[in-house]
């Protein structure tokens, strides 16, 4: 119905081409991972690499049989959702305040915990949480993971908040909004895509982080990712199971990304402000 400009069409083709290229590079290894999880264990490292094979769910079956996969998954979910929520809860207001005041030390401070190698925290945290008897509790894990999620949330949201025209905040102030209200009623709905990105990133980072779980959890509260290591080991690297575990582990973040992707595409809908 509408005439698309001709050059636009070329650009579209070019874009499609790039999309395909990026897709292949990005997805090939992932596809390989999924395929591997469907291969018999020994075939993963077969040479030349096999593309045609009879898929088997054996690895998944074995995974479920040999590990309390579901309960690890529940642990992981609790810890990840907890720490992501905590990160968002603390991070959103902080990012907003930093963007508003342009005073950035709080943002840098929260990042400080990410500047140090994670191993630096192992011993002191172990000592610290042991002192209060929290080793093995979800709380300890959630708190430690929030140290990872918090700076991600803050830093990802900063540019989004910066992008909101000041005068919109000002209008809200004049309308009688306190700063906090402005955050919840005005700023937050406008940075939907930022929040979606922050949530995904925080979730993934927390989900995939194993170091803290290593010392702060015990057998019962161990996370999925920490358990995944069990398939690597001298005398027994179980490739198939490892890939199956990896596939399953990558699933929740993917599902989350798919869920919030609606917010990923919709950015600020400006048209409220001149200039």
């Amino acid at each position, binding site marked *: 119905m509408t005439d698309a400009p001709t050059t636009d069409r070329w650009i579209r083709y070019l874009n499609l081409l790039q999309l395909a290229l990026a897709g292949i590079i990005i997805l090939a290894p992932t596809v390989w991972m999924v395929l591997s999880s469907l291969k018999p264990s020994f075939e993963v490292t077969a040479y030349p690499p096999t593309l045609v094979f009879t898929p088997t769910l054996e690895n998944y079956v074995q995974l479920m049989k040999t590990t309390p996969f579901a309960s690890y998954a529940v642990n992981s979910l609790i810890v990840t959702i907890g720490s992501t929520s905590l990160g968002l809860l603390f991070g959103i207001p902080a990012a907003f305040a930093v963007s508003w005041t342009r005073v950035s030390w709080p943002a840098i401070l929260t990042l400080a915990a990410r500047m140090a190698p994670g191993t630096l925290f192992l011993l002191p945290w172990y000592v610290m949480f042991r002192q209060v008897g929290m080793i093995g509790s979800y709380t300890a894990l959630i708190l430690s993971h929030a140290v990872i999620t918090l700076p991600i949330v803050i830093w990802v949201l900063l540019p989004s908040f910066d992008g909101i*025209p000041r*005068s*919109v905040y*000002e*209008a*809200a*102030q*004049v*309308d*009688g*909004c*306190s*700063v906090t*209200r402005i955050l919840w*009623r*005005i700023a937050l*709905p*406008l940075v939907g895509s930022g929040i979606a990105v922050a949530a995904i990133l925080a979730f993934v980072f927390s989900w995939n982080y194993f170091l803290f779980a290593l010392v702060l959890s015990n057998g019962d509260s161990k996370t999925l990712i920490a358990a995944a290591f069990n398939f690597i080991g001298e005398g027994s690297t179980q490739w198939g199971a490892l890939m199956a575990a990896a596939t399953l582990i990558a699933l929740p973040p993917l599902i989350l990304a798919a869920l919030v992707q609606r917010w990923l595409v919709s950015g*600020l*809908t*400006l*048209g*409220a*402000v*001149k*200039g």
Partner: protein
Amino acid sequence: MASISIRNLVKRYGNFAVIPDLNLEIADHEFVVFVGPSGCGKSTLLRIIAGLEPITAGELYIGDKRVNGIPAAQRDIAMVFQDYALYPHMRVYENMSFALELRGTPKAEIDARVKRAAALLHIEPYLDRKPKELSGGQRQRVAMGRAIVRNPKAFLFDEPLSNLDAKLRGQVRAEIKALSQELKTTMVFVTHDQIEAMTMADRIVVLQSGAVQQYDTPEAVYERPANQFVAGFIGSPAMNFFPVEWRGEAVVFSQDGARVPLGLESCGPLRQAGKGVLGIRPEHFAVAADPADGMAVMIKLVEPLGSDTLIHFDLAGASAIARVDPSLRPKVGDRVSLRPQPGKTHLFDSTDGRVLQ
């Protein structure tokens, strides 16, 4: 419902003093219009009153309360922003109801008020739209609506009608005026439109470079401008200025020594000062029936406005404009004889622009 009092206000951006030192008293219930050239600090002043801009020095009172440290949210002021500043994610209805909601106004009342404002501004069909789906003028009206649904201590309007057509502007202007009389709320209004300024204001503040040039009623500002700046700024087309001298018991143009056909009654001050600047508004030229009676000029350009016609011409080395009756049907190249209407001329000091009287 509050007076606004500004004392020794200073506002700087970096080294640049937008407002060097300003004092202003706006009485309760008063309708004050700020006018001044673009960039003179009108918006800044409004934003300071609203509490959106920190003050470099000085004091600000709303009612009896010193509000220097008080955030905008607690000043209970409604404002229309020059750049609209609508909430992009809210529909028009929500944009307008938001402030009321914050105040816990009952739903039914909110609805009534929003509907009323929408009707007044002719934006009922758009209540369900998002700002980005509106035209410029519609957005501006929403911004306006957002303010007038409220019942604040004071309204601040920053060029709220600039994107409306004349007809709508006339209507809205009348409604605002009515509103101000009904609510008895203090109003501060920024506009570039002379008609708006003249028709709405109880008093007009003429600003230049952040300083008050004159603060008086519209008639006074028009008829008795305090200085050459005000005289030149108020009135459209602008007042014509000619350097004149008192020479040989008569007023003559400095440029060519030609005599200015002026009644002597208005020459007193010039007699003392020796020289000055003569100001004549375009509408205060009369076409002299007797050519000898006026100054003969040649028409350079004719601008028919429908109701009137503007003629451009050169006089005493300056380009000048006169507003004449269209029935005159002037044409470029025609010669006409003009004379200032008696008692309608102004004289200013040639150095500092102060009015001479």
